[in-house]
């Protein structure tokens, strides 16, 4: 029925990024062989949920999935945005999984986006909602995203049952993003963080804070880790605790590290859960571990941490036809995958120059010249 040809892709890799780029460039995609050889083939429930989310915020998109779920036809619509939207993220992946693409999509909508997301707020796999608030949003501000960018954590939800809620507001960009010249890492001037505990004693937070502070003490006095103890309805459906730390540098870079601990051994489809009891990491170790991870990110010497490389590259590629220069530490697998998908959809190849003296990698690209086509012209 459609005259447009579908871009043929394979496998479940970079699922979010592919659909994101497909939507922004209005390229229909046909993804085949999605976990075709797995014991449980096909799309996972979080991927279905992401497709539902796309349907919620866009208009005129069309999703077709075959019986086994190994084949997906996606015809993108126009990003509408809008207020008072609600999406249940399920409990397969944390809210962070959905926030990452949603942030970028929202920028290119017709109206500003304001959406309530329900699910798991903190888990070890995806960036926590606190990391988003403290580190991801400042990265977007670098690209000249105006006021109105906000993430409010209303209640916590740990794995396996979730129950957390966040409220995300994303403004639209009027004339596209602004290319960045972002190579100066600067020096770390302060470390901020948030610990949370839900349905466990507040003492867990004190232990995590104390342990994390112990690591930073010899390096920097300006360390503040706030606590966020939730009780009652605001604490979600499962007990858990966790910590998110962010280092801010003199040149305005935000490097993050976070994790969460809960009883949630979520049983994913396809993975047989043979260990019925998993031991929880004690809070002291969690604090020390994340503090060490953060120091590791600082040592890397990039303007963003390893988790945000993909987002950084994507934003650079979506800039107007202008040169962006950024510096990152070692390229992460997700960062590399993002570079490949950007080339696949936008045809942009980054110029990549390793800097052996500092162990960093410099990347240069010319933006795609992306403007917000969906917005209303008044």
């Amino acid at each position, binding site marked *: 029925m459609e005259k447009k040809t579908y871009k043929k892709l394979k496998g479940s890799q970079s699922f979010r990024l592919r659909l994101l780029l497909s939507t922004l460039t209005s390229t229909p995609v046909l993804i085949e062989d*999605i976990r075709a050889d797995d014991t449980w083939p096909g799309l996972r429930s979080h991927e279905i949920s992401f497709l539902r989310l796309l349907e919620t915020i866009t208009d005129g998109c069309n999703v077709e999935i075959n019986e086994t779920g190994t084949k997906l036809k996606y015809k993108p619509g126009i990003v509408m945005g809008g207020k008072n939207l609600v999406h249940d993220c399920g409990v397969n992946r944390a809210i962070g999984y959905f926030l990452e693409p949603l942030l970028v999509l929202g920028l290119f909508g017709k109206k500003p986006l304001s959406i309530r997301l329900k699910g798991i707020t903190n888990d070890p796999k995806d960036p926590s909602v606190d990391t988003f608030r403290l580190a991801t949003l400042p990265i977007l501000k670098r690209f000249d995203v105006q006021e109105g960018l906000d993430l409010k954590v209303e209640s916590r939800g740990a794995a396996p049952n979730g129950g957390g809620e966040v409220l995300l507001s994303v403004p639209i960009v009027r004339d596209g993003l602004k290319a960045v010249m972002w190579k100066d890492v600067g020096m770390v001037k302060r470390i901020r963080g948030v610990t949370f505990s839900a349905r466990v004693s507040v003492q867990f937070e004190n232990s995590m804070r104390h342990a994390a502070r112990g690591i930073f003490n010899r*390096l920097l006095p300006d360390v503040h880790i706030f606590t966020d103890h939730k009780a009652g309805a605001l604490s979600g459906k499962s007990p858990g605790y966790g910590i998110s730390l962010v280092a801010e540098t003199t040149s305005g870079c935000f490097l993050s590290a976070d994790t969460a601990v809960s009883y949630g051994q979520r049983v994913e489809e396809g993975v047989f859960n043979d260990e019925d009891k998993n031991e929880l990491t004690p809070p002291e170790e969690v604090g020390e571990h994340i*503090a*060490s991870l953060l120091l590791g990110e*600082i040592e890397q010497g990039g303007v963003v941490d390893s988790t945000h490389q993909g987002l950084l590259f994507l934003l650079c590629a979506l800039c107007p036809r202008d040169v962006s220069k950024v510096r990152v530490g070692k390229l992460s697998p997700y960062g590399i995958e993002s570079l490949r998908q950007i080339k696949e959809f936008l045809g942009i190849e980054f110029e990549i120059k390793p800097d052996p003296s500092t162990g960093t990698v410099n990347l240069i690209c010319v933006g795609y010249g992306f403007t917000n086509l969906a917005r209303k012209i008044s």
Partner: protein
Amino acid sequence: SRWKDSLKERIHLGKNKNLKQLIYGKSELKSTSSIDDAQGSSEDEESDEGEFFKPKGESNKNVREDFDGDNVNNDDCSRFSNHFDVTNWIEEEKYERIRDRFVTGDWSKAGRSGQDSD
């Protein structure tokens, strides 16, 4: 000595080229050693036993495959936790490695963008 310098330079040049090719795919260059350089690779662990009965799901969990993009069903996750070893920062000399990355460190050294990291 001088002859070594030019050699070093050439190695660096070669590396630059390879990194871009590694990412954007020139399959004939896959066997270069810089793959192992870039990520502390973790193959060779599933070498000897149980080759015959190999569960299908297990074969996906290989860092090397991640990097080469051979596996089309990679997990879609932005975090990479074993990006670097979590060093034990409590030991004093480990601190010194990144001392000048902080405002409490030496500002003049930091101006030359952290040359002490290698």
